């Protein structure tokens, strides 16, 4: 928490703002997908492994990005143990801003309530020394789920005012679910909002999202960690103006370049590569990426995004091991 507050720390924390759930961990605590995405007890058991088995300094009970979308009525594909659940974005539920309907019981829907219950279970089990990070999705990501990616992206070009109206309406979901998680006991929240460099420009982030993200930082009463995948250096300057505590960044951005871009205005979390390193290589390669982040002054270390479900425990444990080794040597 000190790292999120920009205060001095004894050791750089190891953090999982998205997900470190794996099939191996599911087996160890008998908490497989999809149960661990829909029921509080297995959700909490699987989340706790980030600390109890992997040695991370935080836990994250939300392993995917679909809990709110399910509560909003999106068509879901829950999948099995070896895959993440996904929204069927080719079957969007809304066509225009007028269609948006946010139910009053959004945070008591079974797929959101289970998150709140899991947070309470984790707080009881882990006590105050492990940071519990929750997750509340940003309006840009929610719009992909509810309107379809292509339709929403085309709308953003054709009708900026309608796009802003959609985001303005959807922000209630982000705020309400975020506050509900704070009340349930989280220490911080990840806020994924996929205005990724693979899809839209940095100017888009500034035009559509920066002000909303400033509002989230003001209205949600806990430190926020913004997560955007892909190449994001072109928007890190805008992101650093939001007042959020940290930015969870992707390995497509070099640590030093990223640190120079944000100029200390926001902490960085990341950015160990998933597909090529954590999934495909060994602990020594993982450690090399951890060292590169620490050398650059990155404030919290963790995977760049939700880790592949087949990632080995040995590779994930290499992250906190590397952090300890680096500090021992410095």
């Amino acid at each position, binding site marked *: 928490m000190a790292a999120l507050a920009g205060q001095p720390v004894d050791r750089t924390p190891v953090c999982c703002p998205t997900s470190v759930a794996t099939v191996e961990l599911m087996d160890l605590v008998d908490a497989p997908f999809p149960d661990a995405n829909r029921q509080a007890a297995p959700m909490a058991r699987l989340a706790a492994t980030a600390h109890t088995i992997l040695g991370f300094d935080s836990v994250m009970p939300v392993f995917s990005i679909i809990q709110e979308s399910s509560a909003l009525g999106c068509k879901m*594909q829950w*999948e099995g143990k*070896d*895959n*993440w659940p*996904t*929204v*069927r*974005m*080719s079957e969007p539920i809304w066509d225009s801003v007028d269609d948006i309907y946010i139910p009053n019981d959004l945070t008591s829907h079974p797929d959101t309530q289970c998150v709140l219950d899991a947070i309470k279970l984790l707080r009881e089990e882990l006590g105050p020394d492990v940071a519990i990070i929750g997750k509340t999705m940003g309006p840009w990501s929610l719009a992909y789920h509810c309107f379809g*990616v*292509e339709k929403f*992206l*085309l709308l*953003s*070009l*054709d009708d900026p005012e309608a796009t802003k109206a959609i985001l303005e309406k959807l922000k209630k979901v982000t705020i309400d679910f975020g506050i509900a998680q704070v009340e349930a006991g989280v220490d911080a929240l990840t806020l994924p909002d996929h205005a990724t460099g*693979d*899809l*839209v*420009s940095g100017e*888009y982030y500034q035009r559509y999202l920066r002000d909303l993200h400033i509002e989230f930082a003001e209205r949600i009463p806990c430190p926020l960690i913004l997560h955007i*995948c*892909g190449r994001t250096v072109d928007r890190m300057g805008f992101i650093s103006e939001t007042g959020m505590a940290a930015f969870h960044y992707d390995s497509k951005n070099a640590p030093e370049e990223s640190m120079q871009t944000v100029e200390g205005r926001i902490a960085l979390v990341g950015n160990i590569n*998933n*597909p*090529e390193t954590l*999934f*495909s290589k060994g602990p020594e390669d993982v450690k090399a990426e951890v060292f590169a982040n620490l050398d650059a002054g990155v404030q919290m270390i963790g995977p760049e995004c939700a*880790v*592949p*479900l*087949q990632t080995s425990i040995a590779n994930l444990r290499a992250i906190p091991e590397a952090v300890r080794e680096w500090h021992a040597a410095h």
Partner: protein
Amino acid sequence: MAELSDIQNQTIQDEIEEYLERADEIERFTELFARVKPAMQDIAAAIIEGDDDEVDALTAKALENGIDAIEIMDDGLIAGMGIVGIKFRENFVFVPEVLSCARAMRAGMAHIEPILSASGIESQGKVIMGTVKGDLHDIGKNLCIMMLRGSGFEVIDLGVDVAEDTFIDAVEESGAKVLGMSALLTTTMPNMGRTIEAFIDADVRDDVLIMVGGAPVTQEFSDDMGADGYGADALSCVAMAKELIASAA
């Protein structure tokens, strides 16, 4: 050698000057647009600007004026998408702009395709595309399909969450020589390799050349799973499809 000033359409001149950086591409597009009719330059400019109404009107007018459908497709629509592809590759434009240009392309092709079908003119080749089993993401695949169609390929889109058998059946039924698989998730990426193994197990691997792509997919991963080609983006996908079609001929 043609000069920029040989191109009549100011938008095309500006686009080449402002966005093209590689000498070979500047030369190729300058030569191309200096050669083609002003009406084709206008269509290409409307494609680049993502103006579907304008492309619709200009394509209809060009056909009325007796310009050949193939000429309109090659010198207007495809030429315009060529510039769009380069701007996308170089991050001058992003997905919303490309989607808009692809919509404009479709407006033009709506006039051209019936004529081509009736005349029996062959496409650049037939390509099957799909997102692998367990993965519902299709934006990358759809961009590739738009660029492939914009480059004159016939594309069979199998959609998302495509099972191994569905890929095999599609290849066997269509006779397509190239198959493209996409995945966005690290959990579904290995299903590309499983699909390739299914082709081997069914003894039909030699019937098709397989290319792969998607945000987490790399050249190394592509090589490891035994794919024939990898594309990092939609433009690379088109180049790879051309290369594979040529090697299959």
